C-alpha cells in the first residue's frame, strides 16, 4: 500500500494500520461510492446505495446472499398458510440490538406497523401497505403477518434491504424522523457518525450474533461523486473498494499491480419500449421489425464497452423464475420485409427518447438511431433529464395522449423475483402514472398469469405461470430487450469478502483486509 504520511482522516487510519503490529492491526476499510446517502432509514430510502450502506448496521428477517438467493437472517424459518394469507415467522433467539435490548417479535410488529402507518409518511409506505393487513407478536420468538391478498413474493419483499429490524426502543426514543440520524440495528457494525458532506462511519459490533464476524474494525462509506476522482482514490490507496467504476477507467486500473477490477453479473436489464397504443407501434410486425433491426451485440460493445451481454429474455437471469428465451436475432432483411408487410416499405419518422442523459445513453441512442435508419425508420433522439422524464413519461396522466414512442430505459427487480420484474413494467394496470408500463402493453394472458402466480404459493405452479407470461411477452414484443449490464467495481488486492450483488447492492458481511 502506497500511502504517504498525510493527515487525512482515512489515510491516517490506514497508516496507523500499517504501522501497528500486524496481529493487532486496526482494520479500517474505506469504500468510495458514487453519490451521497439520502438517509440511513431503509424504509424511507428509494436508492439502492443508501439501502446497501444501511446493511452495515441493519438486518432483516430474511436477506439475499451475494447471488440474490433468499436466506434467513434474523428469522429461523417460516410457514405460509394454505390460502397464502398468513405468514408465521420463527425468529432466532439471543440476538441483541446495538442498544443492548433483545430482538424479539415485538420488533417485527413495531417496524411493520411503522411503515404501514400513513402518518409516518415513509417513502416505502405503498409497497408494504398494499399487502400487509396486520402484524402480531404471538410470543417472543414468533411473529405472524397477515396479508390483504395472497402475495407469493412476500418473503422476497421481507428479504429486500428495505425491510430491516430497527430497535423498537430506539424508535420510541428518537422518533420517526430522527431515527435516520441515530440508527440502531442488529447488524455487524454499529453506527458511529454521519458527516453528511463527507462520509458515514461504522465500527465493529463486538457482540455480533454471528461468531467470528465482522473481521474488520470499521468501514468508512465515502461518497466521491466524480468517477475519475473515484478511480484516483483507488490508485492512491485512499479507498479499498469502489463501485461503480466507469468503463473508460477499467483498463488503467487493471494495469495497477495492487488493484483488481471485477465485472460482476447483474439483473439490470436495459430495454427499448414501444408505445403499443400508438401508430405505427400498435402493429406487432412493426415492433418485431424494430427488434430484428437492432444488433444487440453492437449495443453491448459500443455503448457498454463490452461490459454487458445481449439480453436473452424478458426477465434477466438471476431473478427468480426468469426464463432464458434467446437473444432476438439481428436480421436486417427480415426487418425490412416485416416493415413492408406492415405497410411501411419506406419506413417512418418517430421519436427516440432515453430516460437517462448520461454518456452511455447518448452512445446507445446513437447506435439505435443508425441501426433503425437501415430499415428506413428515422428517429429524433431526446435524452430526458430526470425532471423531464417524470413529466413526459412517468407521470403522464392520459394514456391516450402519451407522447412516448420509442423509449430507452432499464429496470432491476429489487425483490429478486419475477413479480417485480414483470408486473410494474408490463401489467395493464401498471400504465403510467401508476407504474412504469411505458409500452402501454396490455395482454389479458399476461395479466392473468401475473395474477395467478401471485395467488399460488406452489413454486412449480408459479414457475409455469411466469414462463408462460415471459414467452407471450417475448412474442408480442412490446419491448426490444437490449442488454443485461455487468457491474464494474475495483478493489484493493488486500481486500476480500466484498461483492457487488446483481441488483447493484453490496454484500459486505465477510469483508476482510490483509
Amino acid at each position: 500500500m502506497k500511502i504517504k504520511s498525510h493527515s487525512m482522516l482515512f489515510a491516517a487510519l490506514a497508516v496507523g494500520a500499517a504501522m501497528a503490529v500486524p496481529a493487532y492491526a486496526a482494520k479500517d476499510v474505506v469504500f468510495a461510492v458514487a453519490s451521497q446517502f439520502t438517509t440511513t432509514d431503509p424504509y424511507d430510502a428509494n436508492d439502492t446505495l443508501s439501502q446497501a450502506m444501511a446493511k452495515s448496521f441493519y438486518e432483516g428477517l430474511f436477506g439475499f446472499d451475494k447471488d440474490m438467493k433468499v436466506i434467513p437472517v434474523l428469522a429461523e424459518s417460516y410457514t405460509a398458510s394454505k390460502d397464502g394469507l398468513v405468514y408465521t415467522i420463527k425468529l432466532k433467539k439471543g440476538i441483541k440490538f446495538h442498544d443492548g435490548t433483545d430482538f424479539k417479535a415485538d420488533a417485527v410488529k413495531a417496524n411493520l406497523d411503522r411503515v404501514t402507518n400513513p402518518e409516518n409518511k415513509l417513502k416505502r409506505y405503498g409497497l408494504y401497505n398494499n399487502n400487509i393487513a396486520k402484524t402480531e407478536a404471538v410470543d417472543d420468538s414468533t411473529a405472524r403477518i397477515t396479508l390483504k391478498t395472497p402475495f407469493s413474493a412476500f418473503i422476497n419483499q421481507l428479504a429486500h434491504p428495505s425491510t430491516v429490524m430497527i430497535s423498537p426502543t430506539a424508535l420510541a426514543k428518537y422518533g420517526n424522523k430522527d431515527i435516520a440520524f441515530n440508527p440502531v440495528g442488529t447488524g455487524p457494525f454499529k453506527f458511529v457518525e454521519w458527516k453528511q458532506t463527507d462520509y458515514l462511519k461504522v465500527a465493529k459490533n463486538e457482540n455480533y450474533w454471528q461468531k467470528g464476524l465482522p473481521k474488520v474494525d470499521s468501514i468508512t462509506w465515502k461518497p466521491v461523486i466524480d468517477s475519475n476522482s473515484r478511480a484516483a482514490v483507488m490508485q492512491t490507496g485512499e479507498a479499498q473498494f469502489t463501485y461503480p467504476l466507469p468503463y473508460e477507467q477499467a483498463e488503467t486500473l487493471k494495469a495497477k499491480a495492487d488493484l483488481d477490477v471485477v465485472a460482476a453479473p447483474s439483473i439490470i436489464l436495459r430495454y427499448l419500449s414501444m408505445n403499443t397504443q400508438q401508430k405505427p407501434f400498435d402493429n406487432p410486425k412493426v415492433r418485431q421489425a424494430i427488434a430484428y433491426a437492432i444488433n444487440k451485440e453492437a449495443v453491448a460493445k459500443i455503448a457498454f464497452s463490452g461490459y454487458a451481454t445481449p439480453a436473452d429474455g424478458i426477465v434477466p437471469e438471476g431473478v427468480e423464475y426468469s426464463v432464458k428465451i434467446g437473444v432476438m436475432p439481428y436480421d436486417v432483411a427480415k426487418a425490412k420485409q416485416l416493415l413492408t408487410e406492415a405497410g411501411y416499405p419506406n419506413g417512418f419518422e418517430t421519436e427516440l427518447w432515453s430516460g437517462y442523459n448520461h454518456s452511455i445513453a447518448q452512445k446507445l441512442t446513437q447506435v439505435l438511431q443508425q441501426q433503425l435508419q437501415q430499415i428506413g425508420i428515422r428517429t429524433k433522439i431526446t435524452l430526458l433529464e430526470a425532471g423531464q422524464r417524470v413529466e413526459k413519461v412517468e407521470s403522464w396522466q392520459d394514456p391516450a395522449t402519451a407522447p412516448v414512442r420509442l423509449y430507452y430505459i432499464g429496470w432491476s427487480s429489487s425483490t429478486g423475483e419475477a413479480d417485480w420484474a414483470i408486473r410494474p413494467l408490463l401489467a395493464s394496470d401498471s400504465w403510467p402514472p401508476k407504474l412504469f408500463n411505458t409500452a402501454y402493453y396490455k395482454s389479458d394472458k399476461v395479466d392473468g398469469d401475473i395474477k395467478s402466480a401471485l395467488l399460488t404459493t406452489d413454486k412449480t405452479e408459479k414457475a409455469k405461470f411466469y414462463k408462460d407470461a415471459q414467452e407471450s411477452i417475448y412474442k408480442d414484443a412490446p419491448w426490444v430487450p437490449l442488454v443485461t449490464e455487468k457491474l464494474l467495481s475495483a478493489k484493493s488486492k488486500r481486500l476480500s469478502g466484498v461483492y457487488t450483488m446483481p441488483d447493484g447492492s453490496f454484500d459486505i458481511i465477510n469483508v476482510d483486509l490483509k
Partner: protein
Amino acid sequence: MLQYIVRRLLGLIPTLLIVAVLVFMFVHLLPGDPARLAAGPDATPATVALVRQDLGLDKPLPEQFIRFATGVLRGDFGRSLRTKRPVSTEIAERFMPTMWLTVAAMAWSVLIGMAIGTLSAVWRNRWPDRVGMTLAVSGISFPAFALGMLLMQIFAVQLNWLPTVGADTWRHYILPSVTLGAAVAAIMARFTRSSFVEILQDDYIRTARAKGLPETVVVVKHGLRNALIPVVTMMGLQFGFLLGGSIVVEVVFNWPGMGRLLIDAVDMRDYPVIQGLVLLFSVEFILINLIVDVLYAVINPTIRYR
C-alpha cells in the same frame, strides 16, 4: 459614509424580495414532479401522494409562497426535500469549506495575478510581458475540470505528494485552490496590466519620475495604488462568483461545498435548498458590491459617498 452604508443595506430589502419571488416562481416552473422524483422508482401512486403531502407540495402555489416567505422572515428556509434536514443546516455545513477555498484561491491568484500584471506593464512588449500574457491567456483558456484532473493525476496519483479528495487539512486545499484560482489569476493579470499601462503614461507619473524618485517607488507607490480601482472591482466580482461554489472544482475534488449542494439540489428538484442557495448568492453579491464601493473610497480618498 456610515449613512451611505445603512442606506445601501436598506436597499437590500426590496431587491431580496424580488429575488425571492423570481426564484420561487422559476423553481416551480421547472419540469418534473419533485414528489415523484423523491419517492423513487419503486413507488406506487399512493406513496407519491403521501410524499407530496409530506413535502407540502399539495398546497396551492400562493400558499406555498406565503409559507416560504414568512418562513424566511423568521430565518426558517424550510427543510430539504431530500435529506429532510433544515435548509439552513445544509447550507451552513457547506458554507465554510467553500468560503475557505474561495479565500485561498483568491489570495494566491490576486497576488500572482497582480505581480504578473505589474511586471508586464512595466516591461511592456518586452519578454516579461510576452511570458506573462501567454500564461494569462492559457489560464483563461484552460478549462477548470481538465486542469483539476491533470493536477490530481500528476500530484496525487503519480507523485503521491498531495491528497486527492476531501477538505480536512491545508494540504487538501492546494490542488483545488490552484485549479480554482488559475482563471482568476489570469484575469487579474490582464486587468492589472491594462490599467497600469494607462496610468504609467499619466502626467503625475512623469512628475514623480522628474522629481528623481527611484523607479520602484514610482511604480509601487504612485502607480499601483491608482491602478487598483478597476482591479478591485474585478476582484469583488470574481469573489462573488467563486463564493457561489465552483461546481466543476467541487465535483472533481469532492469538496463538501455549496457548488455540489446546488447540483445535487437541482438534480433532485430540492426546491427549498435551491431557493435558499440562490437567495444566499444574491445577498453575497450585493454585500460584495457594497464592500467594493467602500474600498474605492479607501484607495482613492477623492471618492466620497453621500
